[in-house]
C-alpha cells in the first residue's frame, strides 16, 4: 500500500508543479466562467462562443491598445461551487483583469462578494436584480433588469384592456426573480395577478398546471422562464383549447424556442433587446450596425441563429474593452473607474450608461416589445 501511495504522491506532486504560472507577457488577461454544458447550456454555450469569437477578432486586429488578450474560459456546468473555485483560480492564479460571466444568478451571487473583496471586475451575464442591487463596487451586469421587462408587459396589457392574469414561472433563479417582479408591479398597474404557479425547470408537460390556471378565468397568461419549457407553454395551451394571449419574458430571445413551438408560437408577445429584429430597425438607429454585424458573424461562424444570451457576453466584452481604451491601461482600479463612467455606449441589449449607483446601465428603452409572426420575430405594433 505504501508503494502505491508513493506513486500517487509523486503524481500529485508533478501535477502541482506543472502549474500555469501567471507569466507576465504584457497581455491583458480576461477570465470567463460560463455554463457551457449542463442544465444551463442554452445560456452558457452562445455566451462562450460569442466571447471567443470577439476575443479572436480583437486579437486579429492587434488587441486592445496594442496588447493581446489572453482569455481563460471555464465551464462551470451551472455549478455554484465550481464557479467559486474557478473565480478563485482566475483571480489568484491567472490574476485576471476582469471576469465575464457567470451565466446564472446562483453562480453570480456566490462570487459577487469574493470578486468585490479581491478587487477584480466582475461583469455578470445573469439577470437577477440582486447582482447589482445592493451595488458592489466591482460588480456589474449586462442583461436588462427583469423589473423593466415586467413593466413593459404590464404596459402592453393595459393597452389591450387586460386586467386579470395568471403566471407560470420556472423554479430557476430567473423564474423566481420574474415572479417577484410580477407580484410587486401588478397592483400598481391595476392588474390582478390571480394565480402564480412555479414549475420544475425540466418539466415536460404543463397541461396540469395550465388547467389549474384556466380554471381561474384569466384573460392572459405570462410565462417567465429561460428553459425549453418556454415552448411547452404555448403548445400545451393551444392543445387544451386555452385561447388567451400569452406573454413571455425576455428569456424567450432564441429562435429555437419559436421553432419548437411551431404554429403555437404565433402571437406571443414579449420584451427583448433589438438584436432579434436587427434587420427591421431603421437605418440610423445607434444599435443597428453593431447588431447586424454581430448577427452576420455569429451565424456564419456557428451556423445557428443569434440569441439574446450571447448578446450579454458581447456587451460585457464591448464595455470592458471600451473601459480599457478609455483608461489607457490595464490597471484594475483605473479600468473599473472608466467602466463606471461609461455613458451612451451602444451594445446588443441597449444603450449602456453606468454610474456609481447603477451598475446595469440600461433603462426601459433597452427593451422593445416583440412578437412572433409566421415563425419569425417581428416588432410588435398595436
Amino acid at each position, binding site marked *: 500500500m505504501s508503494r502505491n501511495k508513493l506513486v500517487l504522491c509523486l503524481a500529485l506532486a508533478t501535477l502541482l508543479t506543472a502549474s500555469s504560472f501567471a507569466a507576465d507577457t504584457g497581455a491583458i488577461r480576461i477570465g470567463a466562467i460560463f455554463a457551457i*454544458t449542463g*442544465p444551463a*447550456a*442554452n445560456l452558457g*454555450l452562445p455566451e462562450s462562443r460569442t466571447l471567443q469569437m470577439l476575443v479572436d477578432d480583437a486579437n486579429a486586429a492587434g488587441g486592445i491598445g496594442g496588447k493581446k488578450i489572453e482569455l481563460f474560459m471555464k465551464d462551470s456546468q451551472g455549478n455554484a461551487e465550481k464557479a467559486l473555485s474557478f473565480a478563485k483560480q482566475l483571480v489568484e492564479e491567472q490574476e485576471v483583469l476582469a471576469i465575464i460571466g457567470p451565466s446564472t444568478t446562483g453562480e453570480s451571487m456566490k462570487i459577487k462578494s469574493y470578486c468585490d473583496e479581491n478587487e477584480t471586475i466582475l461583469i455578470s451575464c445573469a439577470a437577477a436584480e440582486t447582482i447589482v442591487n445592493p451595488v458592489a463596487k466591482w460588480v456589474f451586469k449586462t442583461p436588462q433588469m427583469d423589473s423593466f421587462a415586467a413593466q413593459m408587459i404590464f404596459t402592453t396589457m393595459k393597452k389591450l384592456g387586460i386586467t386579470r392574469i395568471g403566471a407560470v414561472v420556472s*423554479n430557476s433563479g430567473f423564474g423566481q426573480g420574474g415572479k417577484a417582479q410580477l407580484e410587486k408591479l401588478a397592483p400598481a398597474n391595476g392588474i390582478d395577478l390571480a394565480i402564480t*404557479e*412555479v*414549475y*420544475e425547470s*425540466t418539466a*415536460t*408537460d404543463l*397541461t*396540469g*398546471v395550465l*388547467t*389549474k390556471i384556466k*380554471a381561474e378565468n384569466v384573460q392572459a397568461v405570462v410565462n417567465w422562464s429561460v428553459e*425549453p419549457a418556454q*415552448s*411547452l407553454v*404555448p*403548445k400545451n395551451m*393551444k*392543445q*387544451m*383549447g386555452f385561447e388567451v394571449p400569452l406573454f413571455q419574458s425576455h428569456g424567450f430571445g432564441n429562435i*429555437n424556442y419559436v421553432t*419548437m*413551438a*411551431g*404554429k*403555437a408560437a404565433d402571437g406571443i408577445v414579449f420584451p427583448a433587446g433589438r438584436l432579434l429584429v436587427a434587420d427591421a430597425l431603421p437605418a440610423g438607429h445607434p444599435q443597428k450596425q453593431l447588431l447586424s454585424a454581430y448577427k452576420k458573424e455569429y451565424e456564419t461562424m456557428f451556423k445557428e441563429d443569434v440569441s439574446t444570451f450571447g448578446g450579454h457576453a458581447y456587451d460585457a466584452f464591448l464595455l470592458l474593452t471600451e473601459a480599457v481604451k478609455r483608461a489607457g491601461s490595464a490597471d484594475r482600479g483605473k479600468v473599473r473607474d472608466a467602466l463606471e463612467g461609461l455613458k451612451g455606449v451602444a451594445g446588443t441589449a441597449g444603450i449602456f450608461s453606468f454610474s456609481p449607483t447603477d451598475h446595469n446601465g440600461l433603462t426601459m428603452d433597452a427593451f422593445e416589445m416583440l412578437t412572433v409572426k409566421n415563425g419569425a420575430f417581428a416588432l410588435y405594433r398595436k
Partner: protein
Amino acid sequence: MRATQLLQYLLAGIATGSVYAVVAIGFTVVYNATGIINFAQGEFLMLGGMIAISLAPVMPLPAAIAVAVLATGAAGVLLQIVFLSWLKNPAVLRMIIITIGLSILVREAGLHIWDEKVHALPFFSGDETSSLAVLGARISPQVLWVLVISACMVVGLTLFFRSTLLGKAMRACASNPTAARLCGIRASTVVTLSFFLAAAMGALAGCAVSPLTQTQYDMGSSLAVKGFTCAVLGGLGSVPAAVAAGLVVGVLETASVSVLPLAYKDVVALGILLLILVLKPQGLFARRPVAQARAGG
C-alpha cells in the same frame, strides 16, 4: 373541481403515465431475463427520439422512426454485449454502478453527438395547435398516438411472451435459468434479445412522445427514476402490472398539481416509491415474490 377539469387532469396524467409505463416495461423485461436493473433504460428514449429527429428531414417520418427504433435496439444490444455480457456472476452492487455509469456515458455521448438544445419530432398528425375534444376536455391528437402505440406495445409484448417460442423461452429463463438451459435454451440469446426489446420499445416511446415533451440530451435520467418507480410498484415481474403502475403514478402526479405546490410534483412519485419500497417491496400487483428472491443476491 369541475368534471371537465378532472377529466383534463386524467387525460394529461394518462399521457404522462403511458410514457412511464413503457420505461417500466423496459426495466421489467430486462430484469426478468437477466436479474439486472438497467439504469440506462431512460437513455433509450432519448436515443430513439434524437436519431429519428436527425433522420426526419431526409426520409418520411415512419421510416425515420423505424430506423431509429432498430438503431437504438442495436445500441442496446451493443451495450449489453460490450459491457455486460462477459461478467461472470457479478455482485449486485457492481451491476448497479456499471449501469449507472453507462447511462451517464450514453447521455454525455448524446450531448456531444447532437447538442445541448431541445429538439422535437413533427407531430404524427396535425400540428402543435391541433386539439381534439374528448368529453369536454381537450387534448392534442399526439396524446392518442402515445396511448395507442403504448397499448400496441403492451399487447404485442404479451402475445410475444405467451404465444411465440422465443417469448416462452424468455419466460422460462426468467423463472428458472438452470432448467431453461437444460432444455437447450441459450441464456445469452435471451439476454441479448431482452436488451434489444427494451431498447427498441424505449426508442418507439421516445419518438411517440417527442412532439409533446420535446427531446433533450438529458431527458433520460428523470424518466429512468420514474419508470423504475412504476416497475417496482408493478412488482418487477409482469408487464401488465408495470403498465397499470405507470398509469397510476402518472395520474396521481398530474392530479397532485391541484393540491400541492407544483414544485413538489416530483416528490409525489418519489414519495410513492419510498413508501412502496419500505412497506411492500413486492409491489402492489405482484402475485409471486420473484423480485424479492432476486434482490437478496
